[in-house]
């Protein structure tokens, strides 16, 4: 028995560009002319069995968000048919529909009913929701006075209390502090154990592996692989190299003097990977093509955490002056101990000429899993050395003074 079925579903978007600001006159002027369009999804068919957890992965622009919008009925397909059996709960953006002036309690009613809950149902679950979010004591405070953590927790708590047959998950697992994330995961596993069908669309490959029974891989709007999460994830890692080649041919701006052709993380045996370990060596290769020699080149590798903030950026300028002759080349970025804590990340890299960015590649997603334990915000590479007690007390005051004035 399938809870969710896609039958040859396609979705076309018009490339209107400035559609949201377009006026009536513009529209009339363009009337009759065929504007450009592209297929965000093309002929996608799959089924999700009752009680199954399906993970859907793919690069940016592969059609994941379109798929999500189609399942949650936010937009309609251009072709094909989608069948949904049962009540669906989409945890796409927690806290959507909150009104800052209203209290937490009022917002539970508002957001809950937007998500499709009945008033009677909310009455019954109100306390449980407020407790799960940890805002029981702030139920009558306007949410504009909430901390961002409280806000997100309340949003998730409402969605997690929907008695849904099908749960649609986005990157929600990446919100809140570690303790709350743990509770979210617990709650999801609990729902799964109760037979809720789960569709999980994410860049967080480790979570997909942990949570899902089956995986789908999307690329350029088409379904290209289906199988166990591990199978699909390794397909995805291989895709990283393929993808850049495809994008290359589509590059409009061919006048760039140089461009990044591939960005790949490698494991110890030199195979492409998307999974790194905290505290262990990590290695990435940036491949590039130079059309016109670049005199003062700099290549950078950047890491982003969820929410798109840059966690780290590394530039070659500091350690390695680069003169790039025409042709192709590659540069290796490596670290002996990865300092990033476990989580989902994205990496990007760019080439600069005299501090002018020439090329920047779209993000490559990767996951960091627990290697060495992290207590705190990041792993800091370190060594311990046991000193003998007598040695420790024999510090002379004159020596510390000398240290203060370099």
């Amino acid at each position, binding site marked *: 028995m399938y809870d969710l079925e896609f039958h040859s579903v396609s979705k076309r978007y018009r490339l209107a560009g400035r559609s949201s*600001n377009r006026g009536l006159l513009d529209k009339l002027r363009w009337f009759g002319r065929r504007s450009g369009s592209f297929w965000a999804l093309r002929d996608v068919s799959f089924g999700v069995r009752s009680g199954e957890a399906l993970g859907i992965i793919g690069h940016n622009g592969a059609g994941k968000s379109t798929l999500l919008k189609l399942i949650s009925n936010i937009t*309609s397909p251009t*072709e094909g048919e989608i069948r949904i059996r049962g009540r669906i709960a989409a945890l796409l953006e927690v806290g*959507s*529909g909150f009104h800052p002036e*209203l209290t937490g309690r009022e917002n539970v009613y*508002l957001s809950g009913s937007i998500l*499709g809950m009945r008033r009677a149902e909310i009455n019954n679950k109100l306390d449980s929701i407020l407790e799960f979010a940890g805002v029981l004591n702030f139920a009558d405070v306007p949410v504009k006075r909430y901390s961002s953590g409280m806000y997100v927790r309340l949003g998730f708590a409402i969605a997690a209390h929907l008695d849904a047959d099908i749960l649609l998950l986005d990157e929600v697992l990446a919100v809140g502090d570690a303790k709350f994330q743990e509770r979210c995961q617990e709650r999801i596993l609990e729902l799964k154990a*109760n037979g809720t069908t789960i569709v999980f669309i994410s860049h967080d490959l480790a979570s997909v592996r942990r949570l899902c029974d089956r995986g789908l891989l999307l690329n350029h709007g088409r379904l290209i692989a289906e199988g166990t999460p591990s199978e699909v994830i390794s397909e995805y890692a291989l895709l990283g190299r393929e993808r850049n080649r495809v994008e290359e041919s589509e590059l409009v701006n061919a006048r760039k003097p140089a461009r990044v052709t591939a960005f790949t993380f490698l494991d110890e045996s030199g195979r492409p990977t998307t999974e790194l370990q905290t505290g262990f060596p990590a290695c990435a290769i940036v491949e590039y093509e130079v059309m016109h020699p670049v005199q003062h080149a700099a290549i950078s590798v950047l890491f982003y955490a969820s929410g798109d903030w840059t966690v780290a950026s590394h530039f070659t300028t500091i350690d390695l002056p680069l003169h790039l002759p025409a042709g192709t080349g590659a540069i290796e970025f490596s670290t002996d101990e990865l300092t990033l804590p476990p989580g989902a990340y994205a990496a990007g890299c760019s080439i600069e000429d005299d501090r002018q960015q020439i090329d920047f590649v779209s993000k490559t997603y990767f996951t960091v899993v627990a290697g060495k334990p992290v207590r705190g915000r990041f792993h800091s590479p370190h060594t311990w050395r046991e000193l003998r007690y007598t040695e420790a007390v024999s510090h002379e005051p004159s020596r510390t003074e000398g240290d203060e004035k370099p």
Partner: protein
Amino acid sequence: MNGSNQLRRTKVIRPATFSPLTIVRGARDLIHYRDLLLTLTIHRINVRYKQSALGIAWAVLQPLLLMIVYTIIFSVVVKMPHEGGPYAVFVYAALLPWTFFSTAVTTSASSLVAHNNLITKVYFPREILPLTYVLAAFFDFLIASVILMALLGSYHVSLTAGALLVCPIMLVAVLFSLAMALLLSAFQVRFRDIGIAMGLLLQLWMYATPVVYPYSIVPDRFVFWYSLNPMAGVVENFRRVILQHGTMNMAVLLPGVIVCMLLLPLAYLYFKTSEATMADVI
């Protein structure tokens, strides 16, 4: 936690089609979401009055101030013919249904655009958004009606049982507001011009409706075209049943009612068809 399997609804999503079946399906979906309609309407009313210093007085203030201005212009400065009591009562009885219509249409026209963050993130029948504004405007109308009662009392105008006819008359006003709300809100998603044109449109529309002048001065040769405006029939008859002891003028009401009956299903159909891709263009 999952209810028995038999109770599950199967929902089929297909490309949007312009067919009467869409109306039936849409209406069924809407009934399913009735609690959201209620909650959002209450929220609408709450928020409006929570954030303003004068609170609920605003519902009364708008028609009341307009009444004072029009009374000064049309009964002190210029002498406008009027029937059934002093000019202040005459104009206020018309401003009540008119203010309802104008508030309902102006606020609901931008309802979808104003909630684009919701529309791109959650599914619910989109018509709920314009609907809540129409209902909230009706709530304002009820509050402002209290002033009419007070006004009638102070000018010693007595009400008869015929005044109950305001119920079917207001029903026409609500249905017509709904049709306009659906049309204009869906239209504004694609053409932002609507938002800018709204003020002008309603101002012109008010002069095509017997608000500040009596219906009786409309020349006979214009009467048919004039009465195609459903608000003309609503305002004229609203005033008649309140101030002239329950006599209705069907000649001015009927064409508007027919227009309204044709427009509402068409507006809903247009809305539902445009809803399918609303999230892509908003």
